[in-house]
Structures are given as C-alpha cells and as structure tokens.
C-alpha cells in the first residue's frame, strides 16, 4: 500500500518533520480512510441496536396477557440460524483472502456461499415470523411482541440489505475486476457482515436463550 504514487494527489511535497502522533503525516490514503469511516458507521449501527435492545428489555414482560417467550421460541431453529450466520461470516473472511490474491473463481465461489448461507438464515427467520403471526403472536398483539419483531426484524432487514449489497459486489467484481475502489467496498462489506454476526450473538443470547430460561 504505497502512498508515493498518491502523494502528488494530495499535493504532498514537503517532508513531514517531527514525529507527532497518529494521522499527522499528512492525510491517510483512501484505503485507510474509507474503512475507518465505515467502521464509525458500524459503531453508530451498534448504538441503534442498543436502543432496540433497551426497548426490548423494557417491554419483554409487557405481554398484555398474550403469548410469552417460552411459548414461542424454538431453540433448535435458533441453533441452525446461528450456525448458518456464523459459517457465512467465516466464508466471507475466506472470500477476502482470495480477493486479495485476485482469484476470481474462488472469490465469487466463497461470496456465493456467503450469500446462500445468509439466505438460509433469512428463510428460517421468515418461517419463524410467519409461524408466530399465524398463531396470533404477531407484532400487533402486545408490546413484547412489537419489540421482539422489531429487534429481530431490524437485524433481518440488515441481513437482507447485506445480501442485496453482496449481489451488487459480486456483479461489480465480475465486471470490473479487483480494482482498488472495489476492493475497499468489499472490505466494508465484510466488516458489515461480521458486525451483523456480532449483533446476532447478542440476539440469540438475550432474546432466545436468556429469554427462555425456566
């Protein structure tokens, strides 16, 4: 990652002199700046989920006489979902490794697998939602259910958006190759995808496991 070729781009012709800490040697290059900005966005997304978690925690017992957690959640399904998303994160990481080596076939392969595993996750989730709504345990039934569907559904919406993004990335890599800006976007995508798995850890722990303790 050389910056010598980028130095003219930022008009950098003086030699920076003293050692004065991070980020002071002139502007960092795009390969640093873009992922950092995206990391900040991910952190704001974490705060977004924390507000949803806080809401869920406040309303988990507001069942209005309706269905409660133990009656609704199936741990086996959750285990499969968790596995699917975790594997998806893993193969996404492998895709980053092969992308760095500019291997089109393996990269597209791992990315496709990432997407398929994500689809497995989503399908199970949609199935679970459909089942609950069919049983009269939809989000309009009680505050608890509103907050459940919103928290888990928001994560699912992020996964959906992630899959749309993944499709776009696969198409971009296919048509434009492993260009620098495409690689930056791919890196951002992988950060996003891993972050979603981190959120899922919180969800399955708090909502599905702690929520259904005897």
């Amino acid at each position, binding site marked *: 990652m050389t910056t010598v070729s980028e*130095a*003219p*781009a*930022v*008009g*950098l*012709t*003086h*030699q*920076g*002199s*003293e050692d*004065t*800490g*991070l*980020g*002071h*040697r*002139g*502007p*960092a290059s795009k390969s*640093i*700046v*873009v992922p*950092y*900005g*995206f990391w*900040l*966005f991910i*952190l*704001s*997304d974490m*705060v*977004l989920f924390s*507000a*949803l978690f*806080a*809401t869920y925690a*406040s*309303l988990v017992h*507001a*069942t*209005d006489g309706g269905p409660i957690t133990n009656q609704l959640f199936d741990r086996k399904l959750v285990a499969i979902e968790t596995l699917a998303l975790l594997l998806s994160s893993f193969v996404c990481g492998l895709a980053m490794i092969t992308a760095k080596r500019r291997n089109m076939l393996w990269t597209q392969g791992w990315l496709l697998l990432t997407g398929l595993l994500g689809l497995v996750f989503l399908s199970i989730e949609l199935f679970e939602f459909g089942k609950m709504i069919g049983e009269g345990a939809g*989000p*309009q*039934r*009680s*505050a*608890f*259910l*509103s*907050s459940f*569907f*919103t928290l888990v559904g928001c994560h699912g919406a992020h996964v959906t958006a992630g899959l*749309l993004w993944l499709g*776009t990335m696969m198409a*971009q890599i296919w048509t*434009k190759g492993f260009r620098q*800006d495409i690689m930056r*976007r791919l890196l951002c995508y992988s950060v996003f995808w891993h972050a979603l798995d981190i959120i899922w850890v919180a969800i399955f722990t708090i909502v599905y496991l702690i929520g259904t303790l005897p």
Partner: protein
Amino acid sequence: MFGRLTWDAVPFNQPIPLITSLVVILALGAVAIWVTRIRAWPYLWHEYITSTDHKRIGIMYIVLALVMLVRGFSDAIMMRAQQSLAIGASQGYLPPEHYDQIFSAHGTIMIFFVAMPFVIGFMNFVVPLQLGVRDVAFPTMNNVSFWLTASGVLLVNLSLFLGEFARTGWLGFPPLSEKAFSPGVGVDYYLVALQISGVGTVLTAVNFVTTILKTRAPGMSYLRMPVFCWTSLASNLLILAAFPVLTVTLALLMLDRYLGFHFFTNDGGGNSMLYMNLIWIWGHPEVYILILPAFGIYSEVVSTFSGKPLFGYRSMVFATLAICVLSFTVWLHHFFTMGAGADVNAVFGIASMLIGIPTGVKIYNWLFTMYGGRVRFNVPMYYAVGFMLTFVVGGLTGVLLAIPPVDFIVHNSLFLVAHFHQVIIGGVVFALMAGYTYWFPKAFGFTLDERLGKAVFWCWFIGFHLAFMPLYVLGFWGATRRMQHIPDPTWAPWLNIAFVGAAIIGLGIVLTVVQLLYSIRTRDRRRDITGDPWDGRTLEWLTLSPPPHYNFAVLPDVHGEEAYWTRKQTAIKEERLIDEPNYQPIEMPLNTPVGIICAFFASVCGFAVIWYIWWLAILGLIGAFAIFVWYAWRDEHEHIIPVEEVRANARERRRIRMEHLHELSQSV
C-alpha cells in the same frame, strides 16, 4: 390511487396557512424566473447543487438555515402575539389546533432546520481549511448529506400547504402522537422529515470524525489542531452516538402509527414513558452537539481579536472531551417529574451539575485569553462578550433546574422556556452570528458592513433580554409553556414586554438581510485582498478569499500550535515567504448529481408514506436504490487540476502576500 390525499388537504378555509403558502409559492416562482432570466441555472448546477466542495456545501447549509430562520421566527412572533392578545376573555386570533401546530413547528424548525444546518455548515466550510487539507474525507457523501437535510426541509414546509403539521410539540410525545389521538398527517410529516434528514446528519458525522482523525496536514498532531476542530470532533462523535437513538425512537413511533404496534400505546402493554426516556437520550446530547461547535467558534474569535493564543489550550481540549462524555449521562433531568424516584433523580441531578464544571473551565479560559491582550471590538467580539454575559446566566438557571426539587416546581413552565432559549440564543445563535461575520470574507472575498453588524448585535442582545427575562418571572408565577390562552391578566404587562423583545429580534433579522444586501452592493470598499482580514491565527487565513477549489497549492507543513500564526510572524520578521515549493497536479473529486437525485427520491418516498400512497413509496425507494447502484458503477472519480493552473494561482497568492506583508499583522 392517491392514498388519503384529497383536495381537503389544501387549507382553503384557513387564511394564515393559505396566504403564507401563496406568498411562498409566488416568491419561489419569482426567484426561479429571475434565475432563468440571468441564465444562472448552469452556474448553480455546476458550482453549488452538484458540488462536492466542502466550502460550497457549507454555504448551501447556511443559506438553508437562514431561510428557515425566517420561518421559525415567524412562528415565534405569532406565538408572542397570540399570548399578548389572548388574555382573560379574549381568545386571540389562533385557535388551539392552529397554535399547537405553530409551537411544534417553531421548535422542530429551529432545532433541526436552523441550528443544526447552520452549525454543520460552519463545520463544513471551516474544518478542512483549518486542518490544512483539500476537502472532507468523503466529498460525495457530503453532498448527499446536504440534500437529504434539504429534503427534510421540503417536507416540513410542504405541511403548510398540504395537510397540517404535528400538534405534539417538537418532540412528539405519545400517547398524544399516537394514531388514536393524532390521526392526521401532521405527526407523520414530522416523523418522516426528521428520519430523512437524520440519515444525512449521521453521514455528516461519519465524514467529519474520519476527516479530523485521519486527514490532517503534515505535522498537525492532535494537540496542534485548532480548538474549533476539537469541538467539531466532539460534536460529531455525539451525533454518531446519539442520532441512531433518535432514529430508533421515531421509527418505533412510526411502527405504532403505521402498523399498529404497541411500543408507546396506552393498550397492549405499551409504555409511553419509554419514549420520553429514549428521545431524551438523544435530546440531551443534541443540545451539546449544537453548543460545542459554538464554543469552538468563540475560541477562535476570542483568541484572534485579543491578539493572543488561546489560554489553556490543553484544558480546553480536555473540557471539550469531558463535556462530550458527560452529555450522555444527564438525560433524565428532562423528566425528573415523571416518577423515577429520588434515587434516580439524585444521580442525574448531580451529573447535570457536574457538567457545568468543564463549561466553567472554558469560560475562564476565554476570559484569561482576553486579559492582557489588545482586544479589538469588531462585531464577532461583540457576540463573544455578549455570549459570556448571557450564556453564563442561562447556564446558572440550568444548574438551578438540575436540582430535582426545584425542577418539580418549574418543570415545563416559562422558566424552563426562558432557560433553554437563553442558552441556545446566548450560546448557539450568538456564536453563529459571530462565525457568520468572521468567516464571511473568507467565503466571499469581502467583509460585511461593521456598523450594520453592530446594530444587528444590539437588536439580538436587547431583544433577547426583553423577550425572555419576563418569562423567568412568569415561570415562577406558575405560567406553563405552550399556552394558547392566558388566564391571569396580571401577566399581561410581562407578556407585552416579551412581545416587544421579539419584535426587536425581528428587526435584527431584517437588518441582517439589509446588511447582506448593502454589503454586496458596496463590496468594493471592503475587499479582502490578502485573505487575512482579521490577523488570524489558523490555517484558513493562509489562503486567498475565496480559496481556490483545492484550498492549498501544497498542503502546509505544521510545526507547532497555531500553525499559521508562527508562519506569518516569521514571514513578517524575515520579510520573505517560505521557499516556493515543488508544485504538482492536484486530483479533486468530480461533481455529482447523486445527492439531489437521491434526495428527490427520498422526498417522493417520504411524501408517499405520509399520504399512504404505497405504490409511489415503493417507486421512490427503488429509485433511491437505483441511483446508488448507478453511482457505484462510475469509473471516473476525480479530475486533475493541471500543474500550470496550480502554479499560477499559487504565485498570484504569493505575490499579493508579499506585497501586503505588513498589513497582515495588526500588531505591527
């Protein structure tokens, strides 16, 4: 086909919105015709609308804010008039359902569409220049952020012409804001407008935190950054942390309203107190988002016009970061009376008092900066001193309110209203006016007229005190906020004084416009030839006014605190500029229509959601997504400014600087 949009939405039977709408439409039409006649559309499109230049985007934000200030102020003067008229037997001229929309619009507009864009506009214009770089980290995203904010403005103003606005105050508390009690479009306009512009704001925060942490001129370590950049960093960190909570809270209310969820409803297990909690987790940091950059502006202004470096730079930085973190620990003081109990109230009460300490540190630092300096009382300094007198009192009333037993008596009274207007006007607005005067020459190449500027200041200073001091008294006497009718005639004289104060502020706003037009007319008398009209200390004064598109021919080397000041003093002493550097061609980002097109689709989608026109909403969403994919397929990101142009501009700058070297310093 058109959801719930019918001809009933047009306020044919309400004279005030009807006439206002007609006037606005005519005014916009007149402007459009004028722009067409002087053939300025291509210029506007290339130089502003599609610009990725932080300076242009900053100017657009500030223009937006100033226009909305007029609307927000109109709401204010209407409220003052109503409260002066509707005493005892009289009902005034605004029925409650109308009055309620006005105070809701006033607050919403002033916070979200005046204060925020104004502050963000300054950060946009100034921060990259002060950091010695060419632009923010993500220039295209910057353009998108602006246009999303503009989309919010559009929707809020559309509510005047089509439908109604929320009647729930600027924060939209449930259960009143739930569908059951506010079935109309008003709350939906409010929610949708804020959600759309909120996205823009978060993107701005990502942009600026990245810019400040990762892109600075060589040699500019953290402790060599100007204080305005530190406060911008803190403010943007707060935006990043707080706005997601606002997004969630408003989204939950939207889910309740649109899909029948039960977050805050009275039935189904909903808990409206949760809304208060969540919205104030955002709401308190929000006011610090506004005040921190204002403090930064004062730091710049006070040190420049005192001719001294800022006193206690490190303690300023520390105080800023302390305020940043502490602002997230006090939010319950907005609802002491909601029943969390003494333990909880005590903790948050103490925290709220603690946050006054770093602010006090800052005030002392500014005072000590002035002490021993040769203070020049230009208009920005008027505002700085006015701020110190006004804001401190406002802060003290805040410390009073931080005591839960006291708050129980004056919560939601006019005392509270006076407090927050004092800190916002004395703190934020004065800073914005100071910054406007201070950086105007950098943006446009000539200074504003000083005499008119001082007149504007006095209008604000006197007007503010007349308008709000009576409110403290009335608050103690039991006057609640948001009253459409005044039951006690003994309050009348106080309210009338308040009305006069508001009118004087109105005069100040009119004079601001007059000052601008007059200054443009007579600009040749006050040209900023050197680019440094105030004997500045920070890097933005290194450039000519206005700076070239790329800011600096070569990124400046920073060798200590006050990068520009040392360099300038050396140049004056040695009677020569630094050696001419080796010029290179410069890559700058291309213009882009993505922002305005995306905002267009967002507005369409938002409008459709408000009026339940579902097919249009989906089309809007698809359009917004499509434009991003189209943008992502772009191959050309930048254009190159040839080295000849860079060299020519730089040599012109050096020539002018050399010629006027001795005028650069006021101390010579």
